[in-house]
């Protein structure tokens, strides 16, 4: 059974005004238990709007969202259950942070879940460690932090609930390169260790290539394309029509191929490119 099932979602903002905007125009998709799914798409394509439906923050004009087979909008109880199981981290951390200290902010979710103080404390420390912040931050106000530090606290606040479905809206935006790598590892580890599902939005085609098992491409309120990284990234022209781009390593590969080097399948990551080039050189006897 799919952990989340999205059925023909339609949603518009600013209804009844001249700016009425169809943000989702009939989106259907099934998310399987244990998947890592990346949602990509141009600015304003509807990614954040879609994500905010998955834990019931927005209510569709029509259509439905099922969590483990049951409509989340059915009753207060189903909505509440969904909120505990589907954790969403917003695009801007400022939308999420509100407590007076970092500790309280990260503890907020576990507290609502009525976990024991001991368990809450354990989770706060673990999550903080996960996002690469030291304990010195715990008593600080989340508003007195740098942009990247805020992002880390916001992510820790969702992870501390250990949600069955972890949803992150542009989690690597504003992180420094090491923080970004750690976060991508965190996504992988979280998925492997707990078997839980992760859905994340990213504009970084390299990041997506390194962790996603499935890629969903949004365009103007609809799903334009989906499949494995290979299936999606091999459609370079279609991607640029959709306002996207191939990863930098892929353009490097395309350059090399244009120069007449027959390197085989296109690669998306540095590691993949290294191996392909090495095997090419070995075959040609230049190494």
């Amino acid at each position, binding site marked *: 059974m799919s952990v989340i099932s999205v059925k023909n979602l339609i949603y518009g903002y600013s209804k009844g005004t001249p700016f009425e905007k169809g943000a989702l125009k009939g989106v259907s998709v099934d998310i399987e238990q244990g998947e890592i799914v990346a949602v990509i798409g141009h*600015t304003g394509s509807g990614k954040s709007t879609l994500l905010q439906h998955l834990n019931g923050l927005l209510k569709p004009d029509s259509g439905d969202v099922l969590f483990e087979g049951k409509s989340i909008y059915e009753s207060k109880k189903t909505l509440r259950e969904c909120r505990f199981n589907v954790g969403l981290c917003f695009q*801007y951390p400022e939308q999420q942070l509100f407590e007076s200290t970092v500790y309280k902010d990260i503890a907020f979710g576990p507290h609502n879940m009525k976990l024991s103080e001991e368990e809450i404390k354990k989770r706060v420390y673990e999550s903080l460690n996960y996002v690469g912040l030291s304990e010195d931050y715990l008593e600080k106000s989340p508003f007195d*932090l740098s942009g*990247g530090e805020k992002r880390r606290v916001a992510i820790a606040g969702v992870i501390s609930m250990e949600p069955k479905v972890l949803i992150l809206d542009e989690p690597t935006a*504003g992180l*420094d*390169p*090491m923080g970004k790598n750690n976060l991508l590892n965190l996504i992988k580890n979280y998925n492997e260790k707990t078997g839980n599902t992760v859905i994340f939005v990213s504009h970084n085609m390299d990041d997506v290539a390194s962790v996603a098992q499935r890629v969903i491409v949004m365009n103007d309120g609809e799903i334009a394309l989906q499949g494995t990284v290979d299936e999606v990234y091999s459609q370079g022209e279609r991607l640029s029509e959709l*306002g996207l781009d191939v990863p930098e390593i892929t353009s490097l590969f395309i350059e090399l191929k244009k120069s007449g080097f027959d390197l085989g399948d296109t690669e998306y990551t540095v590691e993949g490119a290294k191996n392909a080039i090495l095997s090419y050189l070995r075959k040609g006897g*230049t190494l």
Partner: protein
Amino acid sequence: MNKIIEFKDVSFRYSEEEDYVLKNLSLDFYEGQFTCVLGHNGSGKSTMAKLINALLIPNDGKVYTFGYDTADENLEIDIRRKVGMVFQNPDNQIVATIVEDDVAFGPENLGIPREEIRKRVDEALKIVNMYEYRRHEPHRLSGGQKQRIAIAGIIAMQTNCIVLDEPTAMLDPVGRREVMEALHRLKNELGISVILVTHFMDEAVNADRVVVMNEGKVCMDGTPREVFVKAELLKSIGLTVPKPLELAEKLKKAGVEIGGTPLTPTEFAEEFKKITENRG
């Protein structure tokens, strides 16, 4: 080259109970240059940026912006006429309830004539691909759309110097490329000095100068090539190098004699041709 911004032995902390965020920072910026500022989260980039246009004042030392002492409150307006700024979070700088008024706000404060403002606002909105949203409410836009509006605002101001704090963090790949091209055009065509804070190494590749901050200090300063060649040092402070160079380094470790410091895919392809030609 003319110095436009001068940090003289600047120390800064947000409150007396806290540690210094910037420690005896001395750093100059020059007219007509495109400077990228890199550094780990919390290294002091945004703090440094806010000291440039007097949003923050040093505890010790001096910041001179176009010769004006930023600690002198009377000079604040003069400073803001010279230096425009895009903040890290666009929500913090939305001032109007309609997109085009928001973009016009900066130029209006500079006392630019009406028709000229009209022209600049339209142009700026077209550059960031938000012209069709000109009558919308800026609060009711997607994350990347808000960021584009903030960038349009600074493009329309055309101040002598513009400071942008991670302006492309939420943009899609095409939007990011367009904004980078627009910033380089401002520099090349209007001679505007650009200071860009970013975590994207590929944005730094085309800069005239790269400044790397670490724990409140400048730890590297030079051309992109001079900085990126020191991959180990960069990694040790939480940063990285552009992907083509990372690939070249990895190949070298595996015994491939690829030379140079390729920072872009094209440069990589050129270096790669050389090794195969040498062998062949």
